[in-house]
């Protein structure tokens, strides 16, 4: 039985997943290759990202530090990784301006990754001496212990610019409201949907969900990275097409003569 042999090698009920995964990755990689070959997409303005340089510049002018919080989760979370990549861009700008950058973190591994990335950014900006590992320090793994530190540090150090880029939970509003109270420019980015309303209410700019993941590609300006953003758009188009097709078919099924009334499960997912 050839079929049986195949089935035992490849999990059959995962076929749909395989197709969708391959299509998504295909779109992104193809656009990346196309961008390398010269077809670089124009990316729309993302207000929060255009404000990064302004915020760093303002902190430098005022002689006050910049605070960067890469979320409170560990490196297994994609949001933390995205936050660290944004950190490297912010650190590059801060190194150019010679501004002070504070990065308190709540996970040891994140501290490690943040140090590596800030050091690399300083080197790239031609300011290797600007990098100070003690400014990137571990506070505590505890969510509210970390928030207690951040709130206190904000009240005392009065950073002029605050970045919150990563995975946040309830502490989001503690950070954002205290930052607001000291009059800092605040730019937040997260994909934690429950916290988005609070960042939207309290920060000057908020990168919502997918925008946050696009941030590092956008800030890098590298053609192949910008290409991946167009790949995401193509995948989005395919999803929209699939959705419209599905909806049309479902509607036809209801309208076709002799259709049975939709069961509650079909009406309300």
């Amino acid at each position, binding site marked *: 039985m050839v079929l049986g042999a195949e089935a035992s090698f490849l999990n059959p009920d995962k076929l749909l997943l395989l197709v969708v995964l391959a299509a998504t990755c295909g779109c992104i990689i193809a656009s990346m290759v196309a961008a390398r070959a010269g077809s670089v997409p124009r990316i729309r303005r993302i207000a929060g990202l255009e404000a990064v340089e302004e915020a760093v510049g303002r902190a430098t002018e005022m002689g006050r530090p910049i605070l960067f919080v890469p979320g409170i989760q560990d490196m297994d979370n994609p949001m933390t990784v995205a936050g660290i990549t944004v950190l490297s861009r912010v650190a590059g700008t801060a190194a150019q301006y010679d501004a002070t950058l504070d990065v308190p973190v709540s*996970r040891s591994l994140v501290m490690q990754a943040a140090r590596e990335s800030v050091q690399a950014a300083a080197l790239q900006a031609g300011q290797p001496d600007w990098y100070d590992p003690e400014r990137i320090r571990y506070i505590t793994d505890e969510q509210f212990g970390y928030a207690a530190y951040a709130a206190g540090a904000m009240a005392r150090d009065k950073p002029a610019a605050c970045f919150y880029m990563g995975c946040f939970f309830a502490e989001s509003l503690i950070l954002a409201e205290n930052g607001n109270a000291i009059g800092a420019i605040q730019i937040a980015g997260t994909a934690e949907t429950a916290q988005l309303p609070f960042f939207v209410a309290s920060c000057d700019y908020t990168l919502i969900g997918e925008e946050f993941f696009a941030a590092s590609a956008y800030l890098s300006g590298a053609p192949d990275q910008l290409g991946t953003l167009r790949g995401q758009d193509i995948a989005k188009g395919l999803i929209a097409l699939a959705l419209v097709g599905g909806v049309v078919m479902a509607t036809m099924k209801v309208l076709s003569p002799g259709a049975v009334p939709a069961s509650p499960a079909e009406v309300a997912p």
Partner: protein
Amino acid sequence: MSRSIALLICLVGGLTMLVSPFLPMATGWANEVTDWFNILAAMAFVLGGGSLLKVQLMRLSARGPGWGYSAVTLLAFVVTLWVGLGKVGVVADASAPAVAWSGKPDDEGSAFWWIYLYVMTPITSTLFAVLAFYVASAAFRAFRAKNLEATLLLVTAFIILLGRTFAGVVLTGWLPDWASGLRLENLAVTIMDVFNTAGNRAIIIGIALGVASTGIRLMLGLDRSYLGGDA
């Protein structure tokens, strides 16, 4: 060289996890890797703890403003580690009363439990509760009907706030049954069911695409900032 090996590890690790769900032989792999990560994160505490000790000791020896607070942090840290790792005051577990170390470190009555209950819980849960105040000041400041978008935010929050308390019943409870859909508590349900569902779904789909794209950038080494600067 070291960076190239790191990029190779990243690529191979990522590809392996990408194909593992499709191979029946690989079903336990995701859990195994998660376990490894947890062990790694636990060992990394040495780095985090080292950083904490170093920063606080530096402040303490410099005798700058607030050095006393550094001493308090150090003391709290060391005492907690000591009573927790040493299971101070822990009695043996009921399943093995003869094995002295069998109890859990946070069993009722132990020193670690006392610290958790009377130091950590009140502080962290009060910080959590302080959010009620921040919610108030954020709402006061941000919910202004400046434009259509801000007004939608404002009106929705309004309906939910009213619809989820007795006030909603008082204000619109008189509406007849045929118009019961307009009662505040039912409007709140409709908003959750329709608008919130649609908005959340699109955000979630977008995030999934963002995760996929970020994953590809990391695996292919387009984004390698976490690997540091020198060769």
